[in-house]
């Protein structure tokens, strides 16, 4: 049952449908991230169809491949992987971890089950949802040390919750983006297909989380993976109560008398919470953008700004290259297909010339055609294998497009933190000036103005709290900046390694398969060497 998530499974199908003659591909090495993108699946299925159509004809005429061919070696030695092998192959899973990290955390998502929504059911019969079995194996101390294994069921809603919690706790980090809710797709697709797609996506997502150096140690993730039952993660502020809070506090805030919790002030104004604050920050951002007034606190990190620009450019080029990679894969696939069809045509010709040959020249030609068919079929097979590998490598490009999304998220965390600081700063400024005005007016009245004095006291209180809040906000902002910085460094490092690995793997495969193809064609050239043109 666990094999479901083994993306080598797609390749297993490929093998299963080929006849003996064609099954050259042995077990895919654990280097398969198993993170086949949809394009990989599409490629595999098309390859599948082509194979089964052609195989029956090849069988009778062509000789089976040599033993040497039967041993498939992945040309690239890259085995860095998140590993989606079955949990049964735990040994390989442990091996494939990069040596730097002796800690591992592996997650499997399997066994989708339909369950009924029992409570709060307004619809007779109730609605249903799917749960997935989440299995975790780890040796991390946070989880109980070596040999720890956990198993529980989660629904997609829980994943959304986890994702939201992580966004709140890990501002400034490049947090992997969770799978879409894709409501439309769930209606349109076959439910089986949709559930399988979701299962695979969840697997990828959770393992990405597990690979993130900070998030893998998070309490949120641990609870999600380990603690059974309804996800007990408490939201920092319930949306409903936030709304209420905000509504209650609103009149008092308008008057400027609200006691502000400094920490809360430092948190971003989220939807439903603290409506007034949202308005104020919005006003501030407008002032920043269009007011022509330099904000009190400005983004001074030039390096950061440059970096941001670069990310935008990088995203564009990456997207472009990813697209071209898809076209390249298609072209290779087509080539392999046509080679196969050509081989098949020559198999038929060979058969025709062999059955009841009336001339010796026919027999000779039949042999020649058989050799051509053999070479073409071999070439076709090699193209298909090459393509399967190419897809795996170039998939990295696609993966990093997802990373960019996480980067953008982290940058916007920073921006909103800065906005908070700016808002609070300008609050302070206006508070100060109000106090000064009041004090100035009060000093003109001898003996003091009772009400004014009281007002001044209140404002000074508010000022103190606001200053604390602003300090918090600044601290938060700095924290996020630091996270950004660290994450960017990590991104650079990992991207460098990942892409270098990708390029190497891609190039090695291209070279390796080209050499194999050259062998096949050179053999045919030799077999037909008797026919040399006069000119050549």
């Amino acid at each position: 049952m666990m094999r479901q998530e083994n993306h080598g499974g797609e390749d297993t199908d490929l093998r299963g449908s080929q006849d003996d003659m064609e099954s050259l591909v042995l077990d895919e090495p654990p280097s398969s991230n198993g993170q086949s993108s949809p394009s990989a699946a599409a490629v595999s299925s098309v390859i599948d169809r082509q194979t089964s159509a052609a195989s029956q004809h090849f069988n009778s005429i062509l000789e089976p491949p040599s033993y040497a061919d039967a041993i498939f070696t992945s040309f690239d030695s890259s085995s860095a992987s998140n590993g989606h092998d079955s949990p049964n192959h735990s040994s390989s899973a442990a091996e494939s971890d990069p040596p730097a990290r002796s800690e591992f955390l592996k997650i499997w998502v399997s066994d989708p089950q339909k369950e009924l929504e029992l409570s709060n059911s307004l619809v007779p019969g109730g609605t249903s949802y799917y749960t997935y079995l989440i299995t975790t194996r780890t040796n991390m101390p946070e989880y109980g040390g070596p040999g720890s294994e956990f198993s529980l069921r989660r629904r997609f809603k829980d994943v959304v919750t986890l994702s939201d919690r992580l966004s709140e706790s890990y501002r400034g980090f490049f947090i992997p983006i969770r799978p879409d809710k894709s409501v439309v797709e769930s209606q349109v697709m076959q439910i089986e297909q949709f559930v399988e797609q979701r299962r695979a996506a969840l697997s990828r997502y959770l393992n990405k989380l597990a690979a993130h150096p900070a998030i893998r140690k998070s309490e949120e993730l641990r609870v999600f993976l380990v603690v059974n039952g309804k996800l007990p993660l408490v939201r920092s502020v319930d949306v409903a109560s936030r709304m209420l809070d905000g509504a209650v506090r609103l009149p008092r805030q308008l008057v400027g008398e609200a006691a502000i919790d400094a920490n809360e002030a430092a948190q971003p104004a989220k939807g439903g919470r603290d409506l007034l604050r949202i308005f104020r920050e919005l006003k501030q951002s407008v002032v920043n953008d269009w007011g022509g007034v330099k904000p009190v606190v400005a983004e001074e990190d030039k390096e950061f700004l440059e970096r941001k620009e670069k990310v935008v450019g990088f995203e564009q080029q990456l997207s472009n290259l990813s697209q071209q990679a898809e076209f390249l894969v298609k072209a290779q696939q087509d080539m392999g297909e046509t080679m196969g069809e050509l081989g098949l045509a020559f198999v038929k010709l060979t058969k025709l010339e062999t059955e009841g040959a009336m001339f010796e020249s026919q027999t000779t030609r039949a042999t020649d055609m058989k050799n051509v068919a053999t070479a073409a079929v071999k070439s076709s097979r090699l193209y298909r294998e090459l393509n399967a590998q190419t897809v795996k490598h170039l998939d990295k490009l696609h993966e990093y497009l997802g990373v960019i999304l996480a980067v953008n998220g982290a940058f916007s965390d920073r921006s909103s933190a800065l906005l908070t600081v700016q808002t609070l700063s300008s609050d302070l400024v206006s508070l100060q000036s109000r106090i000064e005005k009041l004090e100035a007016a009060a000093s003109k009245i001898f003996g003091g103005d009772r009400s004014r004095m009281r007002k001044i006291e209140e404002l000074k209180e508010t000022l103190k709290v606001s200053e604390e809040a602003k300090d918090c906000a600044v601290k938060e902002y700095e924290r996020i900046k630091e996270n950004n910085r660290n994450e960017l460094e990590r991104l650079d490092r990992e991207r460098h390694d990942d892409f270098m690995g990708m390029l190497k793997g891609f190039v090695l495969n291209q070279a390796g398969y080209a050499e194999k193809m050259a062998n096949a064609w050179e053999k045919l050239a030799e077999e037909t060497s008797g026919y040399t043109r006069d000119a050549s």
Partner: protein
Amino acid sequence: MEQQRSISGSSLSPRSPSSQPFLSVSVTDPVKLGNGVQAYISYRVITKTNFPEYQGPEKIVIRQKSAVEKFRFSAEFIEMRRQALDVFVNRIASHHELQQSEDLRTFLQADEETMERLRFHETGIFKKKPSDLMQIFKDVQSKVSDVVLGKEKPVEESNPEYEKLKHYIFELENHLTEAQKQAYRLVKRHRELGQSLSDFGKAAKLLGACEGNDLGKAFSELGAKSEALSFKLQKEAHQLLMNFEEPLKDYVRAVQSIKATIAERANAFRQQCELAETIKLKEINLDKLMLTRSDKVGEAELEYKELKADSEEATRRFDTIVRLMNEEIVRFQDQKTIDMGVAFHEFAKGQARLANSVADAWRSLLPKLETCSPA
């Protein structure tokens, strides 16, 4: 001594349903009449038919044949005569063309009065005085039997080896056309792969410029190699077109020309057969004319001679085509083995050359990627 023999038209049994056309004739009841030189024998001719042109389902008429003295009047003679006449008339009746003849109908149906009248008719066939019919019957019998007794005229050669050859040629055209189609597609695929390598290379270079540092360089180098390989693929596409697809096209054309020869041969054969049949009919006619001592005999003899000449010509032509075709096939098979062998060799060489270029290009990139090792 009644003997009934009925031979229906074509290959139908007398008991066939009335919807099937049939014409069955029987000659019976010989009666000797007259004396001496004018002695003759009268027979009853019974016709059973559903032919629309004929009156009613059954008709009985009396016909005479001369009876020569001595042997002529013996019972044997009479019986022989009767049989011969029966056979003769039935054979004519069963010939799918002759049975349509008006003369036959007249013979089988017309009453005595009409017959008398016809006998004196200048141009009618029945003018001829009955003499030595026996001999003539025997001659005609053998000549007509081939024509008339044959159930169906073969319009095609029933040569099993030739059938095999025809089947082979037709199959060959199908398979070769398919191979040529795939070869053309392969050319297209090379062009497409070349194009996509070029685009991929450009995109890689752009990303490389964006990255900077050694990773950027790696992308740029990859991009450059990819673009270079694109050219090689376009070149190979052209080679494929010239040296592989074109010879396959030639092969198809050669097969089509053989198909044309097959058609010619079939025509020649058909002509030959038609002429042979026409000649046989003319022979019957000629005999009839001679029997009735018509002055049309000369004309008929001339026609017959011409036809004979034409027939010989047709046979000659057919034989020539057969001979030429056999020669052509031998030459075709030998030549095509060589032509295709050359094409295959060029194909193999081109593909090997391309594959080696690709391998070399990518391999040359590896050292550069090694140096840009993990930071």
